[in-house]
């Protein structure tokens, strides 16, 4: 399976950007990492079995890059949602409330929550993508759900 850079970006740009944004909490950083990720796709000679395989690879690359960036001293002093506040204000309260609550979760927890609830990955798939045990994924998911329930009350149901 081989996609051109344009095809890959059309299909996965938003997924890669959003995964990165949930870690960096900064639009400019997420955009930079998104570009870096697709540059890496452009330069890799790796072949991909199908679109899902490619998507998982792109997400993994962008998550790694985002985690590396977010660990840097420079970034720790930079995390800001200022450039996003207008969008949050214009969004329905239930959406902005949920988004804000997720972004307040611990970093590793919100990555897993995002992959599970947005990308529809299973616990097993997330463990493979992030190279952590399934038990770690389960416990972070549980923790994230508890924290979201605590913050959002009726805005977050008990379904999984």
């Amino acid at each position, binding site marked *: 399976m081989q996609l051109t850079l344009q095809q890959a970006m059309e299909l996965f740009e938003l997924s890669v950007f959003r995964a990165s944004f949930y870690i960096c909490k900064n639009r400019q950083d997420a955009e930079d990492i998104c570009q870096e990720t697709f540059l890496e796709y452009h330069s890799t000679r790796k072949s991909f079995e199908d679109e899902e395989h490619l998507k998982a*690879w792109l997400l993994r*690359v962008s998550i790694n890059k985002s985690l*590396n960036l977010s660990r840097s001293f420079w970034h720790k002093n930079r995390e800001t949602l200022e450039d996003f506040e207008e969008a949050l204000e214009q969004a329905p309260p239930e*959406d902005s409330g*949920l988004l804000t609550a997720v972004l307040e979760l611990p970093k590793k927890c919100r990555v897993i929550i995002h992959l599970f609830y947005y990308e529809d990955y299973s616990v097993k798939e997330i463990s*493979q993508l992030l190279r952590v045990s399934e038990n770690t994924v389960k416990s972070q998911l549980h923790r994230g759900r508890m924290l979201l329930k605590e913050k959002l009350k009726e805005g977050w*149901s008990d*379904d999984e």
Partner: protein
Amino acid sequence: MTNKERYKKAAEIIVPSGSNDFLQNVEGRTMKMRSKKIIKTVAAAFAAVILIAATGTGVYAADIGGIQKSVGIWLHGDVADVTIKEVGDGQFEVTYPDGSVRGCGGMEEDGHGGMRGVSMESMIAQLRTSVECEQDEDGRIWIYIRDHKIDVTDQIDEKGYAQEKVKDGFLADYITVIWREDGSCAISTSHSGFDSPEKLMQNTR
């Protein structure tokens, strides 16, 4: 509404800034990287001729930026000593004898169905066995494989396809190339025969 439906609806707020044309930016950067790489490696090859006799291989050294190692690789058909430094998970910086620095890295299978950042050993092996195809400043297109330098400019047909037999025996005996007008290329190597353009495009990029 389920939690997943709620979550996906809320996530729609998160979009890149409208002013950012990702595709245009990325394509622009790939072009810059390509021209920069050619210029840098040409300069590095020139410096390597002077430094081959004076340098050794395999020296580990740790500094505040991470582990780095000095290794010998093939560069434009000659041996060159470069320093490879780990700068992140699966990310490395290679410093060439002329002082130019090139980033490289990637992912590899972890043996358990997942992926991980490529290790330094794998990266060194890749550097030592990579087959490069580059266009020089005179417009000639060259294949570099270990100590072989092959000008394939005249073998490339109107579709960019070229075949070249090489007496290497170690890495490959047959090299198939597709050279694209944008300066990128696809290469396959084999001991048994040439690849068709279709197979080459399927297996490489």
